[in-house]
């Protein structure tokens, strides 16, 4: 669906933000794009949707260059930026004037999402609170039924119940034909939602792995003093010393996204090195 090949990008004459970046995103997945503030998540997403143009390399959506912003590509793509714009129209007026641009738009789905988010469709959009505006645009974006949905920090501005609703709605919107990409620096917002994690750190994609594979390879637990030998990464938490260990038993566990992200973003290479090498090498 999205193919980024040898992408180099920088703003103006400044030092490049990305160099020779490679990334392929496929249909049927919900990707979580994680990175610290300023890591370049938004810039990477803008490259993906054609809002900025690469200095070198390419970014293609279904084989077409994203930078050309062709209508045939855009009608199958929905981008929700972190800071959204809403016109001075009611939700219903906005839908009446915008839904037609998306051939697979579903009014029934929109009504369901809006009801779940508790957003009225007769209210004027620019008079709504930021959280309500964001929920409306998320609902609209998912109702477009585009194959590619890209959301930049969609949970910013949402209260805790709305974040729960967001996760539920997003999970229900995934089909085999869709590719959903969500960027965030609030890792917990993606818990039990994404199936693949992509971590952007130091201008590189340092991790791109399915959670199932990570769960097979890694074990997330708390450790006691004396257990340090096997630990790939550990940090203090309220529950004790949270740690990532090699999953030697093969038992399937839950991936602690926050701990994994901290491990990767801390600069410690042990977890990444372990993931790069097949299991049998570790056991030799």
């Amino acid at each position: 669906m999205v193919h980024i090949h040898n992408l180099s990008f920088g703003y103006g004459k400044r030092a490049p933000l990305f160099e020779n970046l490679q990334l392929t995103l496929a249909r049927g997945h919900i990707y979580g794009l994680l990175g610290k503030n300023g890591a370049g998540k938004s810039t990477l997403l803008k490259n993906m949707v054609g809002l900025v143009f690469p200095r070198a390399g390419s970014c293609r959506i279904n084989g077409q260059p994203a930078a050309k912003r062709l209508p045939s590509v855009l009608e199958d793509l929905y981008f929700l930026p972190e800071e959204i714009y809403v016109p001075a129209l009611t939700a219903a007026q906005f839908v009446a004037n915008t839904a037609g641009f998306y051939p697979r738009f579903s009014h029934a789905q929109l009504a369901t999402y809006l009801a779940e988010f508790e957003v009225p469709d007769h209210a004027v959009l620019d008079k709504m609170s930021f959280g309500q505006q964001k929920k409306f645009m998320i609902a609209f974006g998912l109702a477009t039924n585009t194959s590619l949905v890209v959301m930049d920090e969609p949970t910013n501005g949402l209260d805790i119940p709305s974040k729960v609703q967001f996760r539920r709605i997003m999970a229900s919107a995934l089909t085999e034909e869709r590719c959903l990409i969500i960027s965030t620096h609030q890792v917990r917002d993606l818990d039990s939602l994404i199936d693949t994690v992509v971590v952007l750190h130091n201008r590189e994609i340092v991790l791109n792995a399915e959670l199932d594979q990570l769960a097979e390879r890694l074990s997330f637990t708390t450790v006691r003093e004396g257990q340090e030998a096997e630990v790939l990464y550990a940090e203090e938490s309220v529950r004790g010393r949270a740690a990532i260990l090699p999953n030697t038993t093969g038992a399937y566990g839950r991936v602690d996204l926050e701990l994994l992200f901290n491990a990767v973003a801390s600069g410690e290479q042990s977890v990444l090195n372990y993931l790069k090498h097949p299991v049998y090498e570790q056991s030799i």
Partner: protein
Amino acid sequence: MSNQFNLARFGRLFRKHTAEHGRGYLLSVAVLLGLLAVLMGTQAYVQNDPMIPPIQMGYLIFFLLLGGAMFTSTVFASLADKKQAIAALTLPASHLEKYLVGWLYSYVLFTLACIGCFYVVDAAVVSFDNWHGRPAELLNFFDAKYKAYYALLVYAFMHAIAIWGAVYFEKMQLVKTAFLFFIGVAALFVVNFQLVQLLLDHVTGNMVVPFGDIDLGIGKEHYRLALPTEKRQWLGVLPALLVGLFWLAGYFRVQEKQI
């Protein structure tokens, strides 16, 4: 469906633009009507002489050019604001369609609205004015005597520069475009004058207008260098070329817009 232009998609985009900006545009029309009424009405009231067609034409040209430049500079304001620009650029329509909606509103529809407002006010002012027994004379837009229709060509030139500036600059589009325009015109005059002086060995001290005639004084003799009459019409091609060039530059700027 074409990736360059599709009439149904263009219509959809036009309707969306109208729904989102129509109220603001109607307000602008009301302001235009008010300004025309106040200025023309005041002049007709305080001046003893009637408002003859050349004066009426002055108002029309003034409002068309100034109002048009101001309106055009705002028609692509959505591309200057980051949040609006993202929504505009990711909307499934071609760059050509997005540009054409702005072009249509700022050139065709603004011209119609401005001329319409002008005639509403003008007709009222002319009918109430004191013509001292003479028949009241309303400016005939198509009359070859006054050639008021040339205002459309002058506005096309002004519009082409303003629309390019509206897309190119992100803040204070009107001020920056006007500044650049006047700097450009001044530079053209200076370079043209210096070139003519150099080519003609400083035999003319008169002002030399770019693409205009040149008056020479050699001894006591005076000469005028000008294009033959049958070739003068070609000079009209130049502004048309410039208009096309700036309109095209504006379109390509939309295509190259990054956030």
